[in-house]
């Protein structure tokens, strides 16, 4: 958005603020010094323009800053050089043809400031200086693009690394039978956080390298079980997931009220949920049916007045096993 010609003078609406992307965020997060080119070839005021021409040719550049010691005092662009050539004046000094007091950018400024300057000044490059006007580097739009791509790449690699480490978990630990156990306490009527446990379980499976179908089936089954604990239980319950390379065992337990008629509860469309629960999009009487469809093995035990225990298993074929270096894709 900062690259649109009129954006610097325009007020950004609330609606547009909501649409800020990661790239736009980066324009504010990244500082000029992180993306600029250092060790820039510089000219001096007393050099001849023929030396500038030679530098442009050998370095394949189209402009260079002019420094007095390490202080920036001007810039020579391709236009300045053409002006000099038109006058057949290559013996002239750089100070005669350079543009003095060029537009600069501070090394501590966010990249978005540079983007604005590119738009308003139509310059192709900006000298980067410190508070004493000392020359530190040069910044082009290309530098900004590269800097942003690198930052996005870092974001991506961080997640890849987390995924890689997790996916080798079972390989790195030697035992006769290794398993990873995840436990979640589910509070009754906690609709705001409803599904948080399932989300975390699904994410863990993806990081462990489970294939997407297994992660999806497991996520849906646990989500339905989690919502049942939230909707129906008196004191909430516990979800326990045991992950092994060959299977996932899930257990949802609570201490009441228990189910009166387990067979009836399993019937599609049968529900005891209240209207307020139905308004949330649940209580259609499909939860247990959905679970059964998603898992390989399901066992529902309940004693009315005591509590309920729902056990589920998902088996993994060799291709889909988790934690043995199989990637999620």
């Amino acid at each position, binding site marked *: 958005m900062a690259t649109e010609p009129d954006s610097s003078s325009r007020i950004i609406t609330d609606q547009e603020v909501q649409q800020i992307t990661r790239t736009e965020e980066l324009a504010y997060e990244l500082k000029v010094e992180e993306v600029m080119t250092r060790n820039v070839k510089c000219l001096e005021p007393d050099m001849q323009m023929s030396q500038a021409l030679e530098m442009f040719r050998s370095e394949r550049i189209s402009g260079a800053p002019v420094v007095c010691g390490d202080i920036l005092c001007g810039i020579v662009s391709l236009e300045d050089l053409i002006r000099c050539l038109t006058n057949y004046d290559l013996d002239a000094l750089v100070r005669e043809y350079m543009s003095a007091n060029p537009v600069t950018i501070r090394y501590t400024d966010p990249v978005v400031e540079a983007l604005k300057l590119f738009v308003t000044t139509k310059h192709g490059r900006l000298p980067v200086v410190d508070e004493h006007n000392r020359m530190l580097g040069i910044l082009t739009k290309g530098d900004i693009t590269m800097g942003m791509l690198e930052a996005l790449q870092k974001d991506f690699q961080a997640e890849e690394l987390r995924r890689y480490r997790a996916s080798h978990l079972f390989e790195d630990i030697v035992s006769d039978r290794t398993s990873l156990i995840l436990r979640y306490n589910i509070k009754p009527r906690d609709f705001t956080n409803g599904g948080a446990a*399932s989300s975390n379980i*699904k994410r863990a499976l993806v990081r462990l390298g489970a294939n997407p179908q297994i992660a999806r089936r497991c996520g849906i089954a646990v989500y339905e079980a989690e919502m049942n604990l939230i909707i129906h239980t008196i004191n909430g319950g516990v979800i326990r997931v045991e992950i092994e390379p060959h299977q996932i065992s899930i257990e949802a337990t609570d201490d009441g009220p228990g189910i009166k008629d387990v067979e009836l509860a399993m019937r599609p469309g049968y529900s005891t949920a209240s209207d307020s629960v139905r308004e949330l999009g649940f209580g259609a009487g*499909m939860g247990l049916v959905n679970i059964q469809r998603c898992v390989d093995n399901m066992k529902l035990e309940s004693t009315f007045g005591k509590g309920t225990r729902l056990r589920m298993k998902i088996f993994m074929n060799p291709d889909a096993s988790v934690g043995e270096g199989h990637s999620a894709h």
Partner: protein
Amino acid sequence: MNIQELARLVNGNFLANNGDLTREVKGAFAADLMSDVLASIQPEAVLITGLCNPQVIRTAHMADVAAIVLVRGKTPPEETVSLANSEGIPFISTPFGMYEVSGRLYRAGIRSLENQVNAKDCDCG
């Protein structure tokens, strides 16, 4: 058609746009019952719904939904929007109702990503 073009087709506005908006739309599914969604939606579908509580985002995450279209211009609670952003699921608000949105997408060639109900599982066979 990608997610961004789909939003334009329904005069939509992005409530949350953290996610791949250039992703190609494979198909869509419409429901207000989250259990129906969990039971019947195929992966990578666009979910058209009138519900705007955080459970919609949770459901979408579980069911690998590509984007959510919220119908009838409702303003969802803040938790729903921030959850959509943190799960990276594009969340679009449209002024149209569910029938109109479905019709527009269907006419544009977006197919249904709904699993058929087994005849033996219902009274309609």
